[in-house]
């Protein structure tokens, strides 16, 4: 934020960076080769639904857009924090298709002026021993970070660091560990 904005108490909404999302498809390959993690075919987009009719209409449009192509539907859910999740299900081998769908949701929201309301996108992976791992994309930072939940609201930090080692070179990784925000119970994990 610039000096003038600070002086006048104006905060500009941060614009999301969508295109880096496509980096996920190559990262998925690397993660499989390097650490044995395979995609689950699940991915989700999280955004803050604004109040009012305009947003409700756009949300409906997005869902129809995704449902209209062949393949599984998208599922809409709301979490306890009041954020909305769109869960996209694809064939586990079709990571490219999954990422394209996620990007389409984001692009539609952004084109209608709700870009600042995007929170994150994530793609789920499964480890050789059944561990769960998600690569989360933070729009406002344009960075990725791993999230590996364990039962009882704990995080498997070792696994997360391992994932960073495996795909850190492929993706712009979030360097500030303080921003690896947990997303407990997120659809698509």
């Amino acid at each position: 934020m610039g000096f003038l904005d600070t002086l006048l108490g104006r905060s500009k909404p941060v614009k999301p960076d969508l295109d880096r999302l496509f980096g996920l498809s190559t990262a998925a390959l690397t993660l499989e080769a390097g650490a044995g993690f395979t995609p689950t075919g699940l991915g989700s987009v999280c955004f803050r639904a604004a109040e009012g009719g305009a947003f409700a209409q756009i949300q409906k449009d997005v869902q129809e857009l995704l449902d209209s192509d062949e393949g599984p539907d998208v599922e809409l859910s709301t979490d306890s924090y009041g954020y909305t999740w769109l869960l996209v299900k694809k064939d586990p081998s079709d990571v490219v298709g999954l990422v394209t769908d996620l990007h389409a949701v984001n692009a539609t929201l952004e084109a209608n002026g709700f870009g600042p309301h995007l929170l994150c996108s994530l793609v789920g992976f499964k480890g050789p021993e059944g561990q769960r791992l998600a690569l989360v994309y933070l729009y406002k930072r344009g960075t990725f970070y791993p999230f590996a939940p364990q039962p009882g609201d704990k995080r498997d930090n070792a696994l997360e660091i391992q994932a960073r080692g495996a795909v850190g070179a492929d993706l712009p990784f979030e360097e500030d560990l303080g921003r690896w925000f947990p997303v407990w119970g997120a659809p698509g994990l």
Partner: protein
Amino acid sequence: MATRTRYASDRGLTSRMLVTMFLLGLVYVVFVGAFFVIVPKWGVIALVVASLFLLAQYFFSDKLTLFAMHGRTVTAEEAPELHGVIDRICAMSDAPKPKVAIADTDVPNAFATGRNQKKAVVCVTTGLLRRLDPVELEGVLAHEMAHVAHKDVAVMTIASFLGVCAGLITRFGLEWGLWGGFNRRDNDQNTGMILLAVVAVSAVAYAISFMLTRALSRYRELSADRAAALLTGRPSALASALTKVTGEIARIPTNDLRAAQPFNAFFFTPAFGKGFSISNLFSTHPPLDKRLAQLQKISDQLSRGV
């Protein structure tokens, strides 16, 4: 792809804030000028003392306020819900995460302090957590995080610098005058007159800067409301939180309120009951209906798709 934005800036608010700041600066210049003309030697001493006060306030604001409010920093394990809400606000607004604290009092309120984003602390009271639902809580926290992003602690500390200076001088000048400075005959005849002039100038500067600082504070509050409503996309949730909190505060006994008063500047809603109707000129927060009207306007903008 052309991107539309739904974030129209509020020019009226911006220009009112600019005018206030300009006037404050003007009073500042006139005051300092007058002071150095009347008594050049004291001017320096008074400035140094006041600067020390302000520097202390500026650098220790986070610890001072937390200590005074009995706030306790909590980890993500202790308050997962609260941390979750703040995490999401940070991710949405691309802000570093502040420290999170809880104050154990039933007065529903929240405040943010700290001179920059890295030193920021956001504190809520247990009374607030008990009364608000998660979406309302998010609105309140987004409001506090907006104060942090707008660097309101720094801005208001600098803005109130003159007021503190002038207030100190008025007070010490008067005390000294009453001790005999006003009518000491054996000394230079002029001393009494000079002292009187100093006190008069300081008192006027204090009064004007006090009102301007309060006005500035009210504009900063409206700005923070606006930023919070746009960020969360739920102006109505913030409005309902405001209504709940101000309604509840009116029912709390006064001694509790008085204890909380010195910290009003960075509170979410000031801890005055509704019965405490002080003139709008002197309050640090805009009246509730004004805040609600602004939120209603944003809500309309969002739903019509500007």
